């Protein structure tokens, strides 16, 4: 198996994903035609909008993959931009933060991705946690506005950490040197995404089918214990089943998948808490049926740095 070319594995993966989407589309259409005439139910329309959203997202991923490492890095820089604008839109910045935000959007974000692209781990892992952390409040304080100062700079820093720093660990996977796995790192990105996203989808499915006990009624009333267990365990099984595209043994792939699914679930809770406090249901409206980009990326954002460091520590040279 391990001598199978990366391209062949990528084709198989994409074929699998497209097959699943086609299946989901057919099911969605059948459900819709069956429910014709029945009282309007937003559920099926939303399901089909979600499936269409998935087609668009997979198309974007495929397009980026055609351009290799650079394409994937640029895709994530754009996703970071979309996520950061959603995050800052819901944060309490003031006019006096304008220059700091300009620096965040148009300097920190592109520089972070340029550093990831040029494999400068020593700098990109401190750019935002240390240098942006120190310089952004300096830019804000120069405007002399002290109102809610700590809250403002803390929210902006949090936004940069979540939407730029954490998310940039996805393309950073491409730069890891893993002996015997050269030229195939793109499959690690695929592994992370397939596990994180299928965990989200399966939590939803398990929750709909078997959900009884609410797991976090105050934060996210739709999440249930059954959805959580079913989703995380099925994602673990899916991850184990994908061991052949990774440098991991099956049990290792299962453990990493479980770590991804757990971080994804907890990250989803954290991001829900923020949304709930701000009184919104979705982060934005970028993807029809899904809400904003952060609604789709919340689990990946929390899982990516953990997955990156686990692989870097145990597998990279």
């Amino acid at each position: 198996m391990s001598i199978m070319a990366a391209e062949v594995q990528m084709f198989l993966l994409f074929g699998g994903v497209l097959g699943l989407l086609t299946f989901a589309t057919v099911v969605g259409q059948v459900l819709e035609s069956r429910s014709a005439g029945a009282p309007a139910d937003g559920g099926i329309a939303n399901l089909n909008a979600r499936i269409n959203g998935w087609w668009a997202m997979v198309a974007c991923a495929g397009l980026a993959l055609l351009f290799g490492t650079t394409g994937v890095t640029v895709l994530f820089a754009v996703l970071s931009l979309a996520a950061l604008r959603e995050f800052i839109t819901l944060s309490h910045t003031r006019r006096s933060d304008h220059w700091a935000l300009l620096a965040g959007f148009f300097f920190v974000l592109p520089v972070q991705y340029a550093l990831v692209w040029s494999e400068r781990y020593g700098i990109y892992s401190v750019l935002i946690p240390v240098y942006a952390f120190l310089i952004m409040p300096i830019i804000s304080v120069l405007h002399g506005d002290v109102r809610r100062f700590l809250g403002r700079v803390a929210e902006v820093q949090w936004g940069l950490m979540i939407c730029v720093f954490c998310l940039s660990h996805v393309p950073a996977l491409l730069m890891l040197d893993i002996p015997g796995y050269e030229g195939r790192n793109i499959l690690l990105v695929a592994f992370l995404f397939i596990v994180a996203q299928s965990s989200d989808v399966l939590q939803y499915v398990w929750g709909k089918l078997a959900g009884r006990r609410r797991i976090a009624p105050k934060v996210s009333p739709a999440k249930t214990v059954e959805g959580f267990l079913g989703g995380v365990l099925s994602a673990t099984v899916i991850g184990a089943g994908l061991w052949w595209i990774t440098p991991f043994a099956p049990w290792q792939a299962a453990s990493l998948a479980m770590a991804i699914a757990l971080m994804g679930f907890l990250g989803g809770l954290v991001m829900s808490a923020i949304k709930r406090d701000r009184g919104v249901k979705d982060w934005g409206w970028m993807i029809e049926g899904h809400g904003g980009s952060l609604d789709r990326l919340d689990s990946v954002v929390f899982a990516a740095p953990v997955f990156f460091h686990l692989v870097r520590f145990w597998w990279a040279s």
Partner: protein
Amino acid sequence: MNGPEPTVPPDAALSRARKGRIRNGISDSAAARRGSLIAAALAALLRHAIVLFSRLVTGVQVRWSGCGPEPVQRIYYANHTSNGDSILLWTALAPAQRRRTRPVAAADYWAKGSIRRFVAKAVFRSVLIERKEVTRGNNPLSALIGSLDTGASLIVFPEGTRNTSGRTALPFKSGIYHLARARPYVELVPVWIANLNRVLPKGEILPIPLLCTVTFGKPLRLNDGESKASFLYRARDALLDLAPQTEENAR
């Protein structure tokens, strides 16, 4: 102030205005016609570029929460916090609405310099009105009523100036009441523009790409015998109803 009573329905007036323009065109010399064709093409190109740019920067979400995107004649009145308000509202309109809608802009700023004048006149087809030296001859209301009589929709900011007070909206100036009284068949649509003041605060040149929403509310008209004060209060209230309720937006 009493505007002249409307004598023709607006759509007939519009088609008459169009015919008038065509007739005038025939008498132009060929060179002038070519020049104005190039200017018109450039203006159309700029219009598309500006719509695309403001969509990209603001990711604008349009909410039709009290009326639909039908291209009927309307006066859109909105809160005013940023230089880009007219552009974003105009971007939020459906293409057919956009074609008949003219922003109202201050002549003291927009009539200065040939580039500004081109942008205001050719690109946005603005109605320029005098804010400072108002005389009988350049009364802003007659310009607005005149453009309503050609069938155009208008974009106005009844607060009169950009609101940087931190309050949700300033008190309304009375112009909107006089318009409603002069042309009672034109519906007034409140429009709340959210967040654009954070994208481009007063005095800044570079925008930050935060998300904006434009919410169109329920149309209103002047009631029979309604006083100026109560109409202005009602219109402002209809606009404030569209504002998101946050602790910072307390009325």
